[in-house]
């Protein structure tokens, strides 16, 4: 037999009241997930393999252009980056020395030519692919160096030469007015 002690002395058992704790609600991350999905789709759309091959190089001051030609669909692109103080050739960016060497050092020209021929042959192994040379040069580089690279490239078998620029549809508007007008 149980004895209940009543606080008020009435004999009734003391009523125990359990405090109700609300269950903690888990943070809803569905909306966050939606936003992230949208961002991801947007980024995937913008990031292409082409931009991976032709990325803007820090330290290169690109010239501006209105024209924006597309790379050939079936093509293999080999970049040549002409900095004011160095020339990097190929996807791996092999350093072939100073731009002046292009005009003054015959051995350097031969080395670059051999390397570009290997690259072009690799591209031609893939059926139907064209070899494209993408020249990324600083806008303050004298054209003599660029001409030499183009000559070496065309001799090596690159039939399509692309010059990398920065897209700027307003560069002509921003230039000073013609003196003849």
């Amino acid at each position, binding site marked *: 037999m149980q004895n209940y002690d009543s606080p008020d002395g009435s004999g009734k058992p003391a009523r125990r009241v359990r405090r109700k704790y609300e269950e903690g609600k888990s943070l809803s991350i569905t909306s966050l997930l939606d936003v992230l999905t949208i961002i991801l789709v947007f980024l995937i759309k913008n990031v292409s393999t082409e931009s991976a091959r032709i990325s803007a190089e820090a330290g290169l001051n690109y010239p501006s*252009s209105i024209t*924006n030609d597309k790379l050939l669909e079936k093509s293999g692109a080999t970049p040549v980056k002409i900095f004011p103080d160095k020339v990097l050739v190929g996807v791996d960016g092999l350093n072939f020395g100073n731009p002046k060497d292009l005009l003054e050092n015959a051995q350097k020209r031969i080395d670059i030519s051999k390397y570009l021929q290997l690259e072009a042959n690799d591209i031609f192994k893939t059926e139907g692919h064209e070899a494209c040379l993408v020249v990324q040069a600083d*806008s*303050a580089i004298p054209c003599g160096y660029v001409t030499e690279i183009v000559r070496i490239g065309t001799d090596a078998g690159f039939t399509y030469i692309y010059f990398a620029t920065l897209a700027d549809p307003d560069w002509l508007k921003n*230039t000073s007015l013609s003196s003849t007008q």
Partner: protein
Amino acid sequence: MARFKPSDVRQQKSQTAPQEPNLVPIMNLFLTIIPFMLMMVVVSQVALVALNFSQGEGGGGGSGAGGGGKTDTEKVEIHIMGKGFEKTNQFLGMEIREGSLEKARIPAVNEIYDYVALDNAIKGIRASKADLVDITVLVHPDVLYGDLIRTIDLCKTNGFSQVHYTAPKVQYYD
């Protein structure tokens, strides 16, 4: 009348609230991919100016101009003179040669090439020769690469889809 005995162990699932799918792994994946892709995004768009050096087209570095078999009257050349030329000829700027027509000179203003005048001149050529798509740009070796690109760009924007890039052999005598 057949009667079926109720099952001994009647499994009655307690009715619980439907569980939400565990989104934590997906979130982890997203949080890894998105910063990586943001790093890859290039804010400034790299454009390309194409030149075709396949058979029959003009080549770079050679002294011969690529004309694609055009007759002399249809051939249009833009010569960009450098500072070396200025020393010997007292002229810095561009020269447009159109077959037998007189050379049109566009002098540089304060050692800056006049692209607005060049644009107008190319527009004039386009108006007179609507079907012409070939144009040759001859650049002296001391001209800056940026100036070459701007000239090619103006040719392309004015409808000259086949721009031939040629470097003349230049020797300056003091």
